[in-house]
């Protein structure tokens, strides 16, 4: 491995991974942070969409349409997930787990272990490559455009009346109801949006790799949460707009560190998992420490204000 290879690898692998996983992080963000729901279905929903996207292409569906259908199917899954809680009163955590288990069968039926892009078929990236004639550049370019579009869309949406009421619903349902917000409706909308994002990421992932296994989503939630926490640790929690931006930067930093660890000689085979675990634990610990410090600070602030009054 020489320097040229190192930089080329980091320069291509980091953006590709970071751009896919920032969409996952955004989906996890909407569920975990905005709605306040621990949605466990992510790990199964991600490969569901990847596999579906590839299956549809293999069946002759144009790649963009295949991606779209995979996203809509994911939204359907999100709806079922939320309906389990809203209509059947099932605990949100349990509902997500039920969906995760339920998705196992369709994933298996569709992929039969591993699904590959059939020869002669094309993905949205292969399609673009006919213009650029450089596969990696095509992938990074298209992913960058999609990511940017999604982030801008997210920023816009959560600044609208509807988006604000979704955020309110997740943070304080009593106050939201008192202000005329249909919190059940918001819950459903939130999970559908979250699932759409996970589905988009999964569908893109499947087309990026041209293959997917049942298992390719394992660990998605952890990566998503790690990116969210890393973003908050590094950039704080100043505003919503900032949080979105920090997701992108955190995703890049996360993959940069992971990829660097991975190419260090001897590290990758023996210590990779341990190092990853330590890395993620560190992120979460610092995040929690910051939260406690912030709490103490705001209590002190409140006491000072009280004294002044």
């Amino acid at each position, binding site marked *: 491995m020489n320097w040229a290879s190192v930089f080329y690898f980091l320069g291509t692998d980091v953006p590709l991974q970071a751009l896919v996983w920032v969409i996952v992080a955004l989906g996890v963000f909407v569920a975990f942070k905005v709605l306040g729901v621990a949605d466990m279905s992510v790990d199964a929903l991600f490969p569901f969409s990847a596999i579906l996207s590839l299956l549809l292409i293999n069946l002759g569906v144009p790649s963009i349409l295949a991606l779209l259908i995979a996203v809509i199917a994911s939204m359907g899954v999100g709806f079922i997930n939320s309906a389990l809680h809203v209509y059947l009163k099932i605990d949100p955590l349990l509902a997500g787990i039920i969906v995760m288990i339920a998705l196992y069968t369709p994933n298996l039926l569709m992929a039969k272990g591993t699904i590959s892009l059939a020869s002669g078929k094309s993905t949205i990236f292969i399609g673009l490559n006919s213009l650029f004639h450089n596969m990696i550049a095509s992938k990074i370019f298209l992913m960058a455009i999609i990511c940017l579009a999604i982030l801008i869309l997210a920023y816009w949406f959560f600044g609208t009346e509807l988006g604000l009421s979704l955020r309110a619903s997740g943070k304080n349902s009593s*106050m939201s109801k008192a202000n005329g917000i249909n919190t059940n409706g918001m819950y459903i909308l939130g999970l559908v949006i979250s699932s759409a994002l996970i589905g988009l990421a999964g569908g893109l992932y499947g087309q990026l790799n041209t293959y997917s296994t049942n298992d390719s989503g394992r660990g998605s939630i952890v990566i998503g949460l790690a990116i969210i926490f890393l973003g908050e640790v590094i950039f704080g929690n100043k505003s919503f707009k900032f949080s979105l931006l920090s997701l992108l930067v955190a995703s890049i930093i996360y993959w940069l560190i992971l990829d660097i660890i991975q190419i260090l000689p001897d590290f990758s085979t023996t210590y990779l998992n341990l190092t990853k675990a330590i890395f993620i634990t560190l992120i979460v610990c610092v995040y929690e420490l910051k939260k406690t410090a912030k709490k103490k600070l705001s209590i002190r602030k409140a006491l000072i204000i009280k004294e002044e009054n």
Partner: protein
Amino acid sequence: MIELKNIVKDFDSANSINHVLKGLNLKINDKDFITVIGSNGSGKSTLLNIIAGSFPPTSGQIIFDGEDVTKTKEHQRAHLIGRVFQDPNTGTIGDISIQENLAIALKRGEKRTLRWALKKEYNDIYVRQLKPLNLGLETRLGDKISSLSGGQRQSVTLLMAVLKKPKLLLLDEHTAALDPKTSKKIMALTEKLIEDNGLTAMMITHNMKDAIRYGNRLIMISEGRIIADIRKDKKDKLTIDDLYAQFDKAEKTED
């Protein structure tokens, strides 16, 4: 005019049924400012929650200007009601800015669309409402609510409750969690807002003095029933001892 007809509320517990409200009747006239007192467990908070729609009554009706809203959900009748909770943290969202909180209240009862929530024009409305408070909040629209004190938060919650004129303002011991000085300020603000906006209001309070001093009508609730409904002239002449006497009388009648 708001009418409560024969409100009964039973709560099922493990071995028994708890009859909290036992056929309560009340007619609230426009511009009434009713103070509500009663011992713990008498059903005051339950009554407020039922009016707001947090949960339905076991039987009975709630009618707003001829419209029966008994079967509607809380968020569906929110356009009629402004609410201030006892806990300053319940009425606002600490993580987001004053401006964003007010934006949520501004659209109470309206359909939430994809229009931008923080339009510049709305800021004028917020500033106009915040300025008279003399808390300097109008210059801090972008600050997070969590940076405010409890009293400031309740002020904001009050404003949010009347930002869109409600048919009924519900105040559930909204000064109970505040220190006496701040409490006084909030009560003064409450009175002013009700007067300036010509609001109909119902205020639960533990403070007998406040119950006598504020409002034009005083209701005493005991064991799920209204045992006294005292109007303005008689109300002004009341003393705290009078109220205690009423409670004793009611208890003796129950036994």
